[in-house]
Protein backbone atom coordinates (compact mmCIF):
# COMPACT_ATOMS: atom_id res chain seq x y z
CA UNK A 1 0.00 0.00 0.00
CA UNK A 2 1.28 3.45 -0.92
CA UNK A 3 0.27 6.73 -2.49
CA UNK A 4 1.75 7.37 -5.92
CA UNK A 5 1.87 10.92 -7.25
CA UNK A 6 2.60 11.60 -10.91
CA UNK A 7 4.70 14.73 -11.24
CA UNK A 8 4.83 16.03 -14.78
CA UNK A 9 7.85 18.08 -15.86
CA UNK A 10 8.14 20.94 -18.30
CA UNK A 11 11.42 20.79 -20.24
CA UNK A 12 12.98 18.94 -17.34
CA UNK A 13 11.73 21.34 -14.67
CA UNK A 14 9.02 21.13 -12.03
CA UNK A 15 6.65 23.92 -11.09
CA UNK A 16 4.90 25.09 -7.97
CA UNK A 17 1.99 22.84 -8.90
CA UNK A 18 4.30 19.79 -8.82
CA UNK A 19 5.38 20.60 -5.26
CA UNK A 20 1.78 21.28 -4.27
CA UNK A 21 0.80 17.86 -5.65
CA UNK A 22 3.59 16.14 -3.75
CA UNK A 23 2.64 17.98 -0.53
CA UNK A 24 -0.94 16.83 -1.02
CA UNK A 25 -0.02 13.22 -1.76
CA UNK A 26 2.19 13.08 1.33
CA UNK A 27 -0.68 14.27 3.52
CA UNK A 28 -3.06 11.73 1.97
CA UNK A 29 -0.45 9.05 2.71
CA UNK A 30 -0.34 10.17 6.35
CA UNK A 31 -4.11 9.76 6.55
CA UNK A 32 -3.69 6.19 5.32
CA UNK A 33 -0.69 5.47 7.58
CA UNK A 34 1.49 4.86 4.59
CA UNK A 35 4.12 6.70 2.53
CA UNK A 36 4.05 8.63 -0.70
CA UNK A 37 6.13 7.98 -3.79
CA UNK A 38 6.63 10.51 -6.59
CA UNK A 39 6.82 9.34 -10.18
CA UNK A 40 8.62 11.40 -12.79
CA UNK A 41 8.72 10.35 -16.43
CA UNK A 42 11.25 11.65 -18.92
CA UNK A 43 14.56 13.45 -18.68
CA UNK A 44 14.91 15.33 -15.42
CA UNK A 45 18.24 15.98 -13.71
CA UNK A 46 18.88 14.52 -10.30
CA UNK A 47 19.09 17.90 -8.53
CA UNK A 48 15.64 18.79 -9.87
CA UNK A 49 14.22 15.39 -8.86
CA UNK A 50 15.58 15.83 -5.33
CA UNK A 51 13.45 18.97 -4.95
CA UNK A 52 10.38 16.73 -4.78
CA UNK A 53 11.89 15.23 -1.63
CA UNK A 54 11.37 18.53 0.21
CA UNK A 55 7.62 17.96 0.32
CA UNK A 56 7.26 14.73 2.21
CA UNK A 57 7.72 11.86 -0.27
CA UNK A 58 9.71 8.82 0.84
CA UNK A 59 10.67 7.68 -2.63
CA UNK A 60 11.15 9.25 -6.05
CA UNK A 61 10.91 7.02 -9.09
CA UNK A 62 12.54 8.42 -12.19
CA UNK A 63 11.33 6.51 -15.23
CA UNK A 64 13.05 7.03 -18.54
CA UNK A 65 11.03 5.74 -21.41
CA UNK A 66 12.90 4.87 -24.55
CA UNK A 67 11.25 6.14 -27.68
CA UNK A 68 8.62 8.26 -26.01
CA UNK A 69 9.19 11.97 -25.72
CA UNK A 70 5.67 13.19 -26.42
CA UNK A 71 2.48 12.80 -24.46
CA UNK A 72 0.73 9.79 -25.92
CA UNK A 73 -2.21 9.09 -23.68
CA UNK A 74 -2.23 5.33 -24.24
CA UNK A 75 1.49 4.80 -23.75
CA UNK A 76 1.59 7.03 -20.67
CA UNK A 77 -1.46 5.35 -19.19
CA UNK A 78 0.09 1.92 -19.57
CA UNK A 79 3.41 3.07 -18.10
CA UNK A 80 1.88 4.79 -15.07
CA UNK A 81 -0.60 1.98 -14.45
CA UNK A 82 2.16 -0.66 -14.57
CA UNK A 83 4.28 1.28 -12.08
CA UNK A 84 1.26 1.91 -9.81
CA UNK A 85 0.54 -1.81 -9.78
CA UNK A 86 4.15 -2.74 -9.14
CA UNK A 87 4.31 -0.25 -6.26
CA UNK A 88 1.05 -1.52 -4.82
CA UNK A 89 -0.40 1.99 -4.92
CA UNK A 90 -3.88 2.28 -3.47
CA UNK A 91 -4.14 6.00 -4.19
CA UNK A 92 -2.87 7.73 -7.31
CA UNK A 93 -2.61 11.52 -7.38
CA UNK A 94 -2.40 13.69 -10.51
CA UNK A 95 -2.94 17.36 -11.26
CA UNK A 96 -6.31 18.42 -12.64
CA UNK A 97 -4.48 20.24 -15.45
CA UNK A 98 -4.69 19.27 -19.13
CA UNK A 99 -2.28 16.35 -18.70
CA UNK A 100 -4.10 15.06 -15.64
CA UNK A 101 -7.44 15.37 -17.42
CA UNK A 102 -6.03 13.38 -20.34
CA UNK A 103 -4.52 10.56 -18.26
CA UNK A 104 -6.58 10.18 -15.08
CA UNK A 105 -9.79 8.88 -16.70
CA UNK A 106 -7.84 6.34 -18.77
CA UNK A 107 -5.98 5.21 -15.63
CA UNK A 108 -9.30 4.93 -13.84
CA UNK A 109 -10.56 2.36 -16.33
CA UNK A 110 -7.26 0.51 -16.53
CA UNK A 111 -6.84 0.20 -12.76
CA UNK A 112 -10.57 -0.13 -12.06
CA UNK A 113 -10.13 2.83 -9.76
CA UNK A 114 -12.84 5.31 -8.89
CA UNK A 115 -11.82 8.87 -9.40
CA UNK A 116 -12.37 12.13 -7.59
CA UNK A 117 -11.47 14.88 -10.04
CA UNK A 118 -10.68 18.47 -9.16
CA UNK A 119 -10.49 17.81 -5.44
CA UNK A 120 -9.82 20.93 -3.39
CA UNK A 121 -8.79 19.53 -0.05
CA UNK A 122 -7.81 16.35 1.76
CA UNK A 123 -10.29 13.48 1.73
CA UNK A 124 -13.06 13.96 4.30
CA UNK A 125 -12.52 10.38 5.40
CA UNK A 126 -10.65 7.28 4.27
CA UNK A 127 -13.07 4.58 5.40
CA UNK A 128 -15.33 5.07 3.54
CA UNK A 129 -13.14 7.08 1.20
CA UNK A 130 -14.93 10.41 0.67
CA UNK A 131 -13.52 13.35 -1.25
CA UNK A 132 -14.59 16.96 -1.46
CA UNK A 133 -14.84 18.30 -4.99
CA UNK A 134 -16.12 21.19 -7.04
CA UNK A 135 -19.60 20.72 -8.53
CA UNK A 136 -22.07 22.80 -10.50
CA UNK A 137 -19.19 24.91 -11.78
CA UNK A 138 -18.24 26.21 -8.36
CA UNK A 139 -21.80 26.88 -7.19
CA UNK A 140 -21.55 23.87 -4.88
CA UNK A 141 -19.20 21.18 -3.60
CA UNK A 142 -19.91 17.47 -3.68
CA UNK A 143 -18.97 14.74 -1.23
CA UNK A 144 -18.02 11.88 -3.49
CA UNK A 145 -17.62 8.40 -2.03
CA UNK A 146 -15.14 6.28 -3.94
CA UNK A 147 -16.12 2.63 -3.63
CA UNK A 148 -13.17 0.91 -5.31
CA UNK A 149 -10.05 -0.40 -3.51
CA UNK A 150 -7.79 1.80 -5.67
CA UNK A 151 -8.60 5.52 -5.89
CA UNK A 152 -7.43 8.29 -8.17
CA UNK A 153 -7.49 11.93 -7.12
CA UNK A 154 -6.79 14.91 -9.36
CA UNK A 155 -5.96 18.05 -7.42
CA UNK A 156 -7.25 21.48 -8.42
CA UNK A 157 -4.28 23.80 -8.88
CA UNK A 158 -3.54 26.29 -6.07
CA UNK A 159 -6.13 24.69 -3.81
CA UNK A 160 -3.82 23.08 -1.27
CA UNK A 161 -0.55 24.97 -0.97
CA UNK A 162 2.92 23.72 -0.13
CA UNK A 163 3.90 21.77 2.97
CA UNK A 164 7.64 21.38 3.38
CA UNK A 165 8.86 18.20 4.99
CA UNK A 166 12.04 16.30 4.32
CA UNK A 167 11.31 12.60 4.66
CA UNK A 168 14.69 11.55 3.29
CA UNK A 169 13.52 10.50 -0.14
CA UNK A 170 15.33 7.70 -1.94
CA UNK A 171 15.80 8.03 -5.68
CA UNK A 172 15.15 5.02 -7.86
CA UNK A 173 15.97 5.02 -11.55
CA UNK A 174 13.84 2.92 -13.82
CA UNK A 175 14.24 2.21 -17.49
CA UNK A 176 10.94 1.48 -19.20
CA UNK A 177 10.49 -0.02 -22.61
CA UNK A 178 7.37 0.97 -24.46
CA UNK A 179 6.04 -1.09 -27.30
CA UNK A 180 6.35 1.29 -30.26
CA UNK A 181 3.09 0.15 -31.81
CA UNK A 182 1.31 1.49 -28.74
CA UNK A 183 2.26 5.08 -29.53
CA UNK A 184 -0.42 6.48 -31.85
CA UNK A 185 0.10 10.21 -31.40
CA UNK A 186 2.23 12.20 -33.83
CA UNK A 187 3.16 15.73 -32.81
CA UNK A 188 3.68 17.84 -35.93
CA UNK A 189 4.34 21.19 -34.36
CA UNK A 190 4.62 22.79 -30.93
CA UNK A 191 3.63 26.43 -30.45
CA UNK A 192 4.59 27.89 -27.11
CA UNK A 193 3.72 31.24 -25.65
CA UNK A 194 7.07 32.59 -24.54
CA UNK A 195 7.99 35.20 -21.99
CA UNK A 196 4.55 35.23 -20.46
CA UNK A 197 3.50 34.21 -16.99
CA UNK A 198 1.02 31.39 -17.45
CA UNK A 199 -2.47 32.20 -16.33
CA UNK A 200 -2.92 28.89 -14.55
CA UNK A 201 0.41 29.25 -12.70
CA UNK A 202 0.11 32.90 -11.69
CA UNK A 203 -0.30 34.03 -8.09
CA UNK A 204 -1.74 37.35 -9.26
CA UNK A 205 -4.03 37.84 -12.26
CA UNK A 206 -5.21 41.13 -13.76
CA UNK A 207 -8.28 40.64 -15.89
CA UNK A 208 -10.26 42.95 -18.19
CA UNK A 209 -13.87 42.84 -19.28
CA UNK A 210 -16.18 44.68 -21.59
CA UNK A 211 -15.80 47.75 -19.35
CA UNK A 212 -12.38 48.18 -20.97
CA UNK A 213 -14.38 49.46 -23.98
CA UNK A 214 -11.84 48.72 -26.72
CA UNK A 215 -8.87 46.44 -27.41
CA UNK A 216 -6.76 49.60 -27.66
CA UNK A 217 -7.23 50.32 -23.96
CA UNK A 218 -5.26 47.33 -22.65
CA UNK A 219 -1.92 49.18 -22.26
CA UNK A 220 -2.32 50.23 -18.61
CA UNK A 221 -3.81 46.84 -17.67
CA UNK A 222 -0.79 45.03 -19.09
CA UNK A 223 1.51 47.55 -17.37
CA UNK A 224 -0.21 46.91 -14.04
CA UNK A 225 0.17 43.16 -14.56
CA UNK A 226 3.87 43.55 -15.39
CA UNK A 227 4.46 45.65 -12.28
CA UNK A 228 2.76 43.07 -10.09
CA UNK A 229 4.38 40.08 -11.80
CA UNK A 230 0.87 39.02 -12.76
CA UNK A 231 -0.67 37.17 -15.67
CA UNK A 232 -3.34 38.84 -17.79
CA UNK A 233 -6.80 37.41 -18.33
CA UNK A 234 -10.13 38.49 -19.76
CA UNK A 235 -13.85 37.77 -19.67
CA UNK A 236 -15.67 35.79 -22.34
CA UNK A 237 -17.13 38.73 -24.34
CA UNK A 238 -13.60 40.11 -24.66
CA UNK A 239 -12.21 36.89 -26.10
CA UNK A 240 -15.31 36.34 -28.26
CA UNK A 241 -14.81 39.82 -29.75
CA UNK A 242 -11.19 38.92 -30.42
CA UNK A 243 -9.91 41.80 -28.28
CA UNK A 244 -7.71 39.24 -26.48
CA UNK A 245 -6.75 35.65 -27.31
CA UNK A 246 -9.02 32.83 -26.13
CA UNK A 247 -6.20 31.43 -23.99
CA UNK A 248 -6.86 34.41 -21.68
CA UNK A 249 -10.57 33.65 -21.23
CA UNK A 250 -11.33 32.81 -17.62
CA UNK A 251 -14.75 31.53 -16.70
CA UNK A 252 -16.87 28.45 -16.81
CA UNK A 253 -16.02 27.41 -20.36
CA UNK A 254 -12.57 29.01 -20.35
CA UNK A 255 -9.83 28.60 -17.78
CA UNK A 256 -10.67 27.87 -14.17
CA UNK A 257 -8.10 29.64 -12.03
CA UNK A 258 -7.40 30.06 -8.33
CA UNK A 259 -4.77 32.77 -7.88
CA UNK A 260 -4.02 34.45 -4.57
CA UNK A 261 -5.19 37.78 -5.99
CA UNK A 262 -7.61 38.33 -8.87
CA UNK A 263 -8.10 41.90 -10.04
CA UNK A 264 -11.21 42.27 -12.22
CA UNK A 265 -11.32 45.48 -14.23
CA UNK A 266 -14.58 46.33 -15.97
CA UNK A 267 -16.02 42.85 -15.44
CA UNK A 268 -19.62 42.71 -14.24
CA UNK A 269 -19.24 39.18 -12.84
CA UNK A 270 -21.82 36.98 -14.56
CA UNK A 271 -22.30 33.55 -12.95
CA UNK A 272 -20.31 31.99 -15.80
CA UNK A 273 -17.36 34.30 -15.15
CA UNK A 274 -17.41 33.79 -11.39
CA UNK A 275 -17.41 30.02 -11.96
CA UNK A 276 -13.87 30.40 -13.26
CA UNK A 277 -12.46 32.69 -10.59
CA UNK A 278 -14.43 32.14 -7.39
CA UNK A 279 -11.67 30.03 -5.82
CA UNK A 280 -9.31 33.02 -5.86
CA UNK A 281 -8.16 33.92 -2.35
CA UNK A 282 -8.78 37.65 -2.84
CA UNK A 283 -10.86 39.34 -5.51
CA UNK A 284 -10.57 43.05 -6.23
CA UNK A 285 -13.15 44.59 -8.54
CA UNK A 286 -13.26 47.87 -10.43
CA UNK A 287 -16.58 48.57 -12.08
CA UNK A 288 -18.79 51.57 -12.84
CA UNK A 289 -21.93 49.80 -11.59
CA UNK A 290 -21.98 49.52 -7.80
CA UNK A 291 -24.68 46.82 -8.07
CA UNK A 292 -22.62 44.59 -10.41
CA UNK A 293 -22.49 40.98 -9.14
CA UNK A 294 -18.68 41.05 -9.16
CA UNK A 295 -18.84 43.12 -5.95
CA UNK A 296 -20.66 40.25 -4.24
CA UNK A 297 -17.67 38.02 -4.90
CA UNK A 298 -15.03 40.68 -4.20
CA UNK A 299 -13.43 41.60 -0.87
CA UNK A 300 -12.30 44.99 -2.14
CA UNK A 301 -14.04 47.19 -4.66
CA UNK A 302 -13.75 50.50 -6.40
CA UNK A 303 -16.76 51.99 -8.12
CA UNK A 304 -15.30 53.80 -11.06
CA UNK A 305 -14.43 53.80 -14.72
CA UNK A 306 -11.66 51.41 -15.77
CA UNK A 307 -9.94 54.03 -17.92
CA UNK A 308 -9.72 56.46 -15.03
CA UNK A 309 -8.88 53.99 -12.25
CA UNK A 310 -6.26 51.90 -14.09
CA UNK A 311 -3.65 54.67 -14.52
CA UNK A 312 -4.04 55.54 -10.84
CA UNK A 313 -3.50 51.90 -9.88
CA UNK A 314 -0.37 51.82 -12.01
CA UNK A 315 0.88 55.00 -10.30
CA UNK A 316 0.10 53.65 -6.83
CA UNK A 317 1.93 50.38 -7.50
CA UNK A 318 4.94 52.29 -8.84
CA UNK A 319 4.97 54.39 -5.68
CA UNK A 320 4.73 51.30 -3.55
CA UNK A 321 7.67 49.75 -5.37
CA UNK A 322 9.72 52.93 -5.04
CA UNK A 323 9.34 52.89 -1.26
Amino acid at each position, binding site marked *: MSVLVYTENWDGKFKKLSFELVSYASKVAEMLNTTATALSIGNVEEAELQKLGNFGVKKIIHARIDGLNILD*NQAYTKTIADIATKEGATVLVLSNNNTGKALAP*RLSVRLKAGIGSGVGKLPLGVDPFVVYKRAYSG*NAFAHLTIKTPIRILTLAQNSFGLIEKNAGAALENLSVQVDGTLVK*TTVKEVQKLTGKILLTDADIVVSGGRGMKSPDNWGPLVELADLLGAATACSRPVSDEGWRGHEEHTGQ*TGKIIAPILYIAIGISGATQHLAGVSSSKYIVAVNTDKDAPIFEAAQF*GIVGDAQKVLPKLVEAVKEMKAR
Partner: protein
Amino acid sequence: MKLLVCISNVPDTTTKVKFVDDNKKFDETGVQWVINPWDELSLTRALEMKDDPASGIKTVTIAHVGSATAEPTIRKALAIGADDAIRVNAVPADAYYVASQLAEVVRTEKFDLVMCGIESSDHNGSLVGGMLAELLDFPSVSAVSYLKIENGQAIINREIDGGKEIVSVPFPFVAIVQKGIAKEPRIAAMRGIMMARTKPIKVVEPVNIESFTEVTGFEMPKPRAACRFIDAENVKQLIEVLQNEAKVI
Protein backbone atom coordinates in the same frame (compact mmCIF):
# COMPACT_ATOMS: atom_id res chain seq x y z
CA MET B 1 -17.19 8.29 -42.00
CA LYS B 2 -19.55 8.11 -39.02
CA LEU B 3 -19.24 10.65 -36.24
CA LEU B 4 -20.69 10.34 -32.75
CA VAL B 5 -21.24 13.38 -30.53
CA CYS B 6 -21.87 12.56 -26.87
CA ILE B 7 -24.05 15.03 -25.04
CA SER B 8 -24.92 15.59 -21.43
CA ASN B 9 -28.16 17.20 -20.25
CA VAL B 10 -27.35 19.86 -17.64
CA PRO B 11 -29.11 22.66 -15.77
CA ASP B 12 -28.93 25.98 -17.59
CA THR B 13 -25.71 27.71 -16.51
CA THR B 14 -27.63 30.57 -14.84
CA THR B 15 -29.58 28.16 -12.59
CA LYS B 16 -29.67 29.01 -8.91
CA VAL B 17 -28.24 25.77 -7.53
CA LYS B 18 -30.14 24.30 -4.56
CA PHE B 19 -30.37 20.89 -2.92
CA VAL B 20 -33.09 18.84 -1.28
CA ASP B 21 -33.26 15.64 0.83
CA ASP B 22 -30.79 16.85 3.45
CA ASN B 23 -28.42 18.20 0.77
CA LYS B 24 -28.20 14.84 -0.92
CA LYS B 25 -30.07 15.62 -4.12
CA PHE B 26 -30.02 18.47 -6.64
CA ASP B 27 -33.30 20.40 -6.57
CA GLU B 28 -34.72 20.14 -10.10
CA THR B 29 -37.73 22.36 -9.38
CA GLY B 30 -38.14 24.94 -12.12
CA VAL B 31 -34.80 24.06 -13.73
CA GLN B 32 -34.25 24.67 -17.45
CA TRP B 33 -32.22 21.87 -19.01
CA VAL B 34 -29.76 22.48 -21.80
CA ILE B 35 -27.05 20.74 -23.80
CA ASN B 36 -23.83 20.90 -21.76
CA PRO B 37 -21.97 23.99 -23.12
CA TRP B 38 -18.83 22.07 -24.20
CA ASP B 39 -20.96 19.42 -25.91
CA GLU B 40 -22.85 22.14 -27.74
CA LEU B 41 -19.57 23.51 -29.11
CA SER B 42 -18.54 19.96 -29.95
CA LEU B 43 -21.77 19.39 -31.90
CA THR B 44 -21.31 22.70 -33.70
CA ARG B 45 -17.82 21.71 -34.85
CA ALA B 46 -19.05 18.25 -35.86
CA LEU B 47 -21.69 19.83 -38.11
CA GLU B 48 -19.23 22.37 -39.54
CA MET B 49 -16.94 19.48 -40.46
CA LYS B 50 -19.80 17.55 -42.03
CA ASP B 51 -20.65 20.64 -44.14
CA ASP B 52 -17.19 20.32 -45.69
CA PRO B 53 -17.34 17.46 -48.22
CA ALA B 54 -13.56 16.97 -47.92
CA SER B 55 -14.10 15.69 -44.37
CA GLY B 56 -15.82 12.56 -45.67
CA ILE B 57 -18.27 12.68 -42.76
CA LYS B 58 -21.57 11.14 -43.80
CA THR B 59 -23.53 11.19 -40.54
CA VAL B 60 -23.47 12.93 -37.19
CA THR B 61 -25.19 10.91 -34.45
CA ILE B 62 -26.00 12.07 -30.93
CA ALA B 63 -25.53 9.76 -27.95
CA HIS B 64 -26.96 10.44 -24.54
CA VAL B 65 -27.21 8.39 -21.36
CA GLY B 66 -30.28 9.42 -19.41
CA SER B 67 -33.98 9.06 -18.87
CA ALA B 68 -36.77 10.11 -21.24
CA THR B 69 -36.92 13.53 -19.57
CA ALA B 70 -33.79 14.42 -21.58
CA GLU B 71 -35.62 14.06 -24.91
CA PRO B 72 -36.19 17.83 -25.37
CA THR B 73 -32.42 18.33 -25.10
CA ILE B 74 -31.80 15.52 -27.63
CA ARG B 75 -34.43 17.04 -29.97
CA LYS B 76 -32.62 20.34 -29.70
CA ALA B 77 -29.38 18.67 -30.81
CA LEU B 78 -31.26 17.17 -33.76
CA ALA B 79 -32.79 20.57 -34.55
CA ILE B 80 -29.30 22.09 -34.62
CA GLY B 81 -28.47 19.56 -37.33
CA ALA B 82 -27.51 16.09 -36.09
CA ASP B 83 -28.91 13.27 -38.22
CA ASP B 84 -30.13 10.88 -35.56
CA ALA B 85 -29.75 10.03 -31.89
CA ILE B 86 -29.28 7.11 -29.53
CA ARG B 87 -30.45 7.37 -25.95
CA VAL B 88 -29.33 4.79 -23.41
CA ASN B 89 -32.30 4.55 -21.11
CA ALA B 90 -30.60 4.75 -17.71
CA VAL B 91 -30.02 7.12 -14.86
CA PRO B 92 -26.33 8.06 -15.10
CA ALA B 93 -24.79 6.72 -11.88
CA ASP B 94 -21.27 8.12 -12.39
CA ALA B 95 -18.75 8.88 -15.13
CA TYR B 96 -17.59 5.26 -15.37
CA TYR B 97 -21.17 4.06 -15.72
CA VAL B 98 -21.87 6.59 -18.48
CA ALA B 99 -18.62 5.85 -20.32
CA SER B 100 -19.37 2.11 -20.18
CA GLN B 101 -22.80 2.65 -21.72
CA LEU B 102 -21.36 4.87 -24.45
CA ALA B 103 -18.65 2.28 -25.14
CA GLU B 104 -21.38 -0.27 -25.81
CA VAL B 105 -23.05 2.15 -28.25
CA VAL B 106 -19.76 2.68 -30.11
CA ARG B 107 -19.05 -1.08 -30.24
CA THR B 108 -22.50 -1.81 -31.64
CA GLU B 109 -22.74 1.03 -34.15
CA LYS B 110 -19.06 1.35 -35.14
CA PHE B 111 -18.18 5.04 -35.21
CA ASP B 112 -14.97 6.40 -36.72
CA LEU B 113 -14.78 9.47 -34.53
CA VAL B 114 -16.29 10.20 -31.14
CA MET B 115 -16.44 13.74 -29.80
CA CYS B 116 -16.97 14.57 -26.13
CA GLY B 117 -16.92 17.90 -24.31
CA ILE B 118 -14.00 18.17 -21.88
CA GLU B 119 -16.26 18.75 -18.90
CA SER B 120 -19.90 18.85 -17.89
CA SER B 121 -21.11 21.92 -16.04
CA ASP B 122 -22.85 19.87 -13.33
CA HIS B 123 -20.33 17.29 -12.11
CA ASN B 124 -17.20 19.01 -13.49
CA GLY B 125 -15.54 15.63 -13.81
CA SER B 126 -13.65 15.79 -17.12
CA LEU B 127 -13.80 12.02 -17.18
CA VAL B 128 -16.21 10.46 -19.68
CA GLY B 129 -14.21 11.04 -22.89
CA GLY B 130 -10.97 9.57 -21.56
CA MET B 131 -12.72 6.64 -19.90
CA LEU B 132 -14.60 5.88 -23.10
CA ALA B 133 -11.36 5.84 -25.11
CA GLU B 134 -9.68 3.48 -22.64
CA LEU B 135 -12.70 1.16 -22.60
CA LEU B 136 -12.59 0.99 -26.40
CA ASP B 137 -8.78 0.94 -26.58
CA PHE B 138 -9.01 3.98 -28.91
CA PRO B 139 -6.44 6.78 -28.96
CA SER B 140 -7.69 9.94 -27.28
CA VAL B 141 -6.66 13.54 -27.61
CA SER B 142 -7.69 15.84 -24.81
CA ALA B 143 -8.10 19.63 -24.62
CA VAL B 144 -8.73 19.82 -28.37
CA SER B 145 -9.25 23.40 -29.52
CA TYR B 146 -9.23 22.73 -33.27
CA LEU B 147 -10.19 19.70 -35.32
CA LYS B 148 -10.27 19.19 -39.04
CA ILE B 149 -10.46 16.14 -41.23
CA GLU B 150 -8.73 16.27 -44.60
CA ASN B 151 -7.84 13.45 -46.96
CA GLY B 152 -8.82 10.94 -44.32
CA GLN B 153 -6.45 12.48 -41.77
CA ALA B 154 -7.31 14.32 -38.59
CA ILE B 155 -5.53 17.60 -37.85
CA ILE B 156 -5.84 18.40 -34.18
CA ASN B 157 -4.71 21.24 -31.94
CA ARG B 158 -4.33 20.25 -28.35
CA GLU B 159 -3.82 22.83 -25.65
CA ILE B 160 -0.85 22.28 -23.36
CA ASP B 161 0.36 24.36 -20.44
CA GLY B 162 1.56 27.53 -22.08
CA GLY B 163 0.81 26.78 -25.70
CA LYS B 164 -0.50 24.20 -28.08
CA GLU B 165 0.58 21.23 -30.14
CA ILE B 166 -0.57 20.25 -33.58
CA VAL B 167 -1.03 16.49 -33.45
CA SER B 168 -2.53 13.62 -35.37
CA VAL B 169 -3.86 10.21 -34.37
CA PRO B 170 -5.32 7.44 -36.53
CA PHE B 171 -9.06 6.70 -36.71
CA PRO B 172 -11.05 5.62 -34.81
CA PHE B 173 -10.34 7.95 -31.90
CA VAL B 174 -11.98 10.06 -29.22
CA ALA B 175 -11.60 13.86 -29.40
CA ILE B 176 -12.15 15.57 -26.06
CA VAL B 177 -12.91 19.14 -27.00
CA GLN B 178 -12.69 22.42 -25.17
CA LYS B 179 -13.33 26.10 -25.77
CA GLY B 180 -12.12 27.30 -29.15
CA ILE B 181 -13.30 24.19 -31.04
CA ALA B 182 -16.15 26.31 -32.45
CA LYS B 183 -16.58 30.03 -32.24
CA GLU B 184 -20.19 30.10 -31.09
CA PRO B 185 -22.75 27.33 -30.66
CA ARG B 186 -24.92 26.81 -33.74
CA ILE B 187 -28.53 27.77 -33.17
CA ALA B 188 -31.48 25.72 -34.41
CA ALA B 189 -33.39 27.35 -37.30
CA MET B 190 -37.15 26.90 -37.74
CA ARG B 191 -36.57 24.41 -40.56
CA GLY B 192 -34.25 22.41 -38.32
CA ILE B 193 -36.81 22.37 -35.52
CA MET B 194 -39.48 21.07 -37.92
CA MET B 195 -37.17 18.41 -39.33
CA ALA B 196 -36.04 17.31 -35.87
CA ARG B 197 -39.56 16.13 -35.07
CA THR B 198 -39.25 13.23 -37.47
CA LYS B 199 -35.58 12.39 -36.94
CA PRO B 200 -35.11 9.02 -35.22
CA ILE B 201 -34.15 8.71 -31.54
CA LYS B 202 -33.22 5.10 -30.91
CA VAL B 203 -33.71 4.02 -27.31
CA VAL B 204 -31.48 1.21 -26.04
CA GLU B 205 -31.44 -0.44 -22.64
CA PRO B 206 -28.29 -0.14 -20.51
CA VAL B 207 -25.70 -2.84 -19.92
CA ASN B 208 -25.23 -3.92 -16.35
CA ILE B 209 -22.38 -1.88 -14.84
CA GLU B 210 -21.38 -1.25 -11.25
CA SER B 211 -20.44 2.40 -10.69
CA PHE B 212 -17.08 3.30 -9.09
CA THR B 213 -18.29 6.32 -7.15
CA GLU B 214 -21.38 7.81 -5.58
CA VAL B 215 -22.25 11.36 -4.59
CA THR B 216 -23.21 11.17 -0.93
CA GLY B 217 -23.87 14.85 -0.26
CA PHE B 218 -23.52 18.43 -1.39
CA GLU B 219 -22.59 21.62 0.34
CA MET B 220 -22.84 25.23 -0.69
CA PRO B 221 -19.77 27.46 -0.88
CA LYS B 222 -19.18 29.55 2.19
CA PRO B 223 -20.56 33.05 1.73
CA ARG B 224 -17.88 35.66 1.23
CA ALA B 225 -17.55 38.66 3.51
CA ALA B 226 -19.14 41.86 2.21
CA CYS B 227 -17.09 43.90 -0.22
CA ARG B 228 -15.13 46.77 1.28
CA PHE B 229 -15.45 49.77 -1.02
CA ILE B 230 -12.58 52.15 -1.52
CA ASP B 231 -13.05 55.60 -2.98
CA ALA B 232 -12.08 55.93 -6.64
CA GLU B 233 -10.16 59.08 -5.74
CA ASN B 234 -8.12 57.17 -3.19
CA VAL B 235 -6.73 54.26 -5.19
CA LYS B 236 -3.54 54.36 -3.13
CA GLN B 237 -5.49 53.04 -0.18
CA LEU B 238 -6.36 49.87 -2.10
CA ILE B 239 -2.70 49.18 -2.81
CA GLU B 240 -1.87 49.80 0.86
CA VAL B 241 -4.56 47.38 2.00
CA LEU B 242 -3.39 44.71 -0.44
CA GLN B 243 0.21 45.18 0.66
CA ASN B 244 -0.11 45.57 4.42
CA GLU B 245 -3.38 43.94 5.39
CA ALA B 246 -3.99 41.13 2.89
CA LYS B 247 -0.23 40.87 2.24
CA VAL B 248 -0.72 39.64 -1.30
CA ILE B 249 1.41 42.09 -3.28
